């Protein structure tokens, strides 16, 4: 294993496909775990709208059915991020990342507001298009080296093409859309704080992990 993640702490092998923890990925995994627990126990915030020109405000309430769905999606998102942190196989990693993308769309799209739905639709299209570079990168790595196992690729001797690494990072960017969040402020008009934070956290985590993968292989 290359030096970026540190020494292996734990390896669980299923033949060629394996799961492992390094100090780096274990830290990210614990982050995802803590936030998943927070999402389970936390109550959603009640968003406040100030009335201009007056001294009043509205407190928006999240209906029970919507809350239940968004909480489920947020938990699924946390589990998918944990899986992406622990996976030692590039294709499994891409599958977990695309699951993070789907659940992020689900968290936001449960809100029945036109602005939020419009933003979620645009985000969903980017997430869907993002699967092309994501799976394309993984398939290129498989096609040129013949293996998908990250530890095997890390030992050297394989020439992983640069374009495959770029495609992989691009795909994760599309799924997590972390750099585009500033432009998609409409999404955050969706009330319900802990669930929306899960979107940001999961995209941050998958992005940090792909940096490790791209440098290691």
């Amino acid at each position, binding site marked *: 294993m290359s030096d970026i993640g540190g020494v292996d702490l734990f390896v669980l092998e299923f033949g060629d496909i394996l799961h492992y923890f390094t100090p780096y990925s274990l830290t990210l995994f614990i982050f995802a775990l803590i936030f998943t627990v927070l999402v389970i126990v936390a109550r959603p915030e009640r968003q406040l709208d100030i009335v201009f020109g007056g001294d009043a405000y509205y407190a928006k309430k999240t209906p029970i059915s919507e809350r239940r769905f968004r909480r489920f999606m947020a938990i699924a998102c946390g589990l998918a991020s944990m899986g992406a942190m622990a996976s030692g196989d590039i294709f499994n990693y891409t599958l977990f990342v695309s699951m993070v993308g*789907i659940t992020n*769309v689900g968290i936001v*799209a449960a809100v*029945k507001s036109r602005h939020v739905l419009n933003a979620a*639709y645009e985000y*969903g*299209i980017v997430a869907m298009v993002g*699967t092309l570079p994501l799976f*394309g990168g993984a398939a290129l790595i498989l096609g040129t080296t013949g293996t998908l196992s990250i530890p095997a690729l890390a030992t050297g001797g394989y020439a992983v093409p640069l374009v495959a690494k770029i495609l992989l990072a691009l795909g994760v960017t599309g799924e997590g859309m972390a750099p585009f969040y500033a432009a998609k402020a409409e999404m955050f008009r969706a009330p319900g704080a802990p669930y929306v934070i899960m979107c940001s956290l999961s995209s941050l985590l998958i992005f940090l992990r792909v940096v490790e993968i791209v440098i290691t292989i």
Partner: protein
Amino acid sequence: MILTYSIGLFVAFAVTGIAFFALMRETDGLHRLLLTDLVEVVTLAFIALVGTDLAEALILPGLVVGTSELIALSEIYRVKEGFNRPPSDGLQIEVMETAPPILAALLVGYGIILSGFSGGAVAGLGVIFYFLSRDHHERFEVIETASGYSWVIWIVAFFTFMIFPERWFFAVMLAGSAILVKVMAKMSIIGTMRGGPNV
């Protein structure tokens, strides 16, 4: 690198370019949704180009991810645009009243002979056709129960393979018939996807 693989990669990248260009030019929401499906197909082509058994196994999860994203997005689009079409009475054509039982029986019979995954697909096609052209106020609990039991049988066959490898023929027969029922039950639900009760 093998020449065929390089040519295939080149074609796939060219198609990617075309798809992204179309996606950039298109402004209508529904058309963009359809164009993302074009991008998904190129994704599968990238995986298929590897051309090994592993690639074959990787196509299935790729396809599932693409399909689930497409379904989620079309649901968002439907809610966003406020499309709530009342369920219609189906196709009002005379031949649709008489032909379905015969065709469905033929397809289901042929599917049972084929057995396994492809048999399930053929038989499922027959059931889809039947449900599409007839009323579908059927008892879905029966289909769901059959699907659940066939899943259990499939798992039993799986364990038989691992624990009693000498009974492989029995396990193959179990798995083949169970997967037939399972795929057929799953596919038959597609035939009823036009709203209304029970769905």
